[in-house]
């Protein structure tokens, strides 16, 4: 049996969180999720399904929130990629991250990084979403632990505090 070797001699480059990373010896069928986690040392994006159904792997690709598991990494060489690790400088928390903690939106935490990215994306494009808009915008992020109640509370808290700050 002659098998094609897994690793490709080709090197490709990804822009992640403002840094450029070379990927080499990779199998080109790898998803961006796999490459981030297993090759670039960025395990913040989680994989619970690898078929776009859970949102745990949500990243920003040229500003759009997409599932990293459905992006072929080798095709994203021109894209600006932001992962949960790139939202705040080391050790700092964004307001969304802080609100998730304050409102009890984290249990096992497996869905959390994807949700944090999705909520940042939502509030950037719609700073004061209605309840239904929030629900629609987060409908691709499954959380099995919380039943979402605390997550909605966290979104509301961020909206309120941002509005507060804008008013000042």
């Amino acid at each position, binding site marked *: 049996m002659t098998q094609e070797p897994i690793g490709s001699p080709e090197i490709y480059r990804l822009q992640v969180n403002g840094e450029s990373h070379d990927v080499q010896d990779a199998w080109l069928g790898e998803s961006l999720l796999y490459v981030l986690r297993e090759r670039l040392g960025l395990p913040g994006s989680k994989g619970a399904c690898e078929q776009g159904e859970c949102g745990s792997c949500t990243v920003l690709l040229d500003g*759009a929130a997409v599932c990293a598991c459905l992006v072929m990494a080798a095709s994203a060489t021109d894209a600006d990629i932001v992962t949960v690790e790139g939202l705040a400088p080391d050790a700092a928390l964004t307001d969304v991250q802080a609100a998730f903690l304050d409102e009890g939106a984290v249990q096992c935490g497996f869905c959390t990084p994807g949700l944090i990215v999705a909520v940042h994306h939502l509030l950037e494009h719609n700073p004061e979403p209605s309840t239904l808009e929030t629900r629609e915008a987060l409908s691709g992020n499954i959380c099995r632990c919380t039943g979402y109640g605390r997550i909605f509370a966290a979104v509301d808290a961020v909206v309120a505090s941002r509005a507060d700050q804008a008013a000042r």
Partner: protein
Amino acid sequence: MSVLTPSTIDEVLAHLAERPEALLLSGGTDVMVEINMAHRKAPAEVVALRRVEQLRLWRHNPSSEGTGGTVTIGSGLPYAEMEHGPLAELFPALAEAARTVGSPQIRAAGTLGGNLGTCSPAGDGLPVLFALDAIVHLRSIGGQRDVPVADFMVGVKQNVLEPGELVTGVTMPIRHGWQGYSKVGVRNAMVIATASACLAMDRDRGAVTLALGAVGTTIIRCRDAEGWLAGELDLSAEPLDISDAVAQEFGRRAAADARPIDDHRSTAAYRGHAVGVLSSRLLRRAAA
């Protein structure tokens, strides 16, 4: 394995001419699932379309005959851009269908080109294309062909795409009259259709078109129900008055055209029932 990332249609076609068996990668929402799940053997060559700006555009083609003209939508335009804005106003049914595809993340990536490439009877874009008599534009290094969508899709996950061919876009007429899309799934979001329907009025021609999804090997155009309704009522009249009895009969005829099956998602009986209900409800909405 290699991954090519051309940035023009011509480059894509040149690559395809060299490697007709290469796999086209648009939003990746179908392709990557198959690769991740190992349902598809890893392709030797991938031609990724994400850099091809030309495929992500849409344009209005005004008509010389005073009708609304047509719109050509690039095969690489993500669903997210069909949900709202000027394109959504031209094709409300497409906007409704787009908004029900998967989740926001899927809609940010997924495209009509991919929906056509996959050709699942449960694809949400397809009933809209069928109801609006879309023309699918195919190109290869050898030239272009325009195929009516009804001839493009020939079976479950089967279409007439030849090796080396690219779907560049679809063209649909702008119609005067209500149009809408409905899909049944057991969850209130992010669910594959167990039955779906798209209805579009064409008030200028006094006609209606109705297409059903997930109830046959292809999308089903309900010619019988369409013809019956046009015979029953003057569909160009304002306002349109639809009685319960007419809506019911329309739904019944639509359901009769369906060829649903039993599977793990639903039963044939339910699917048949549901498309009937959706069809009469859409008709009621058209008259509301």
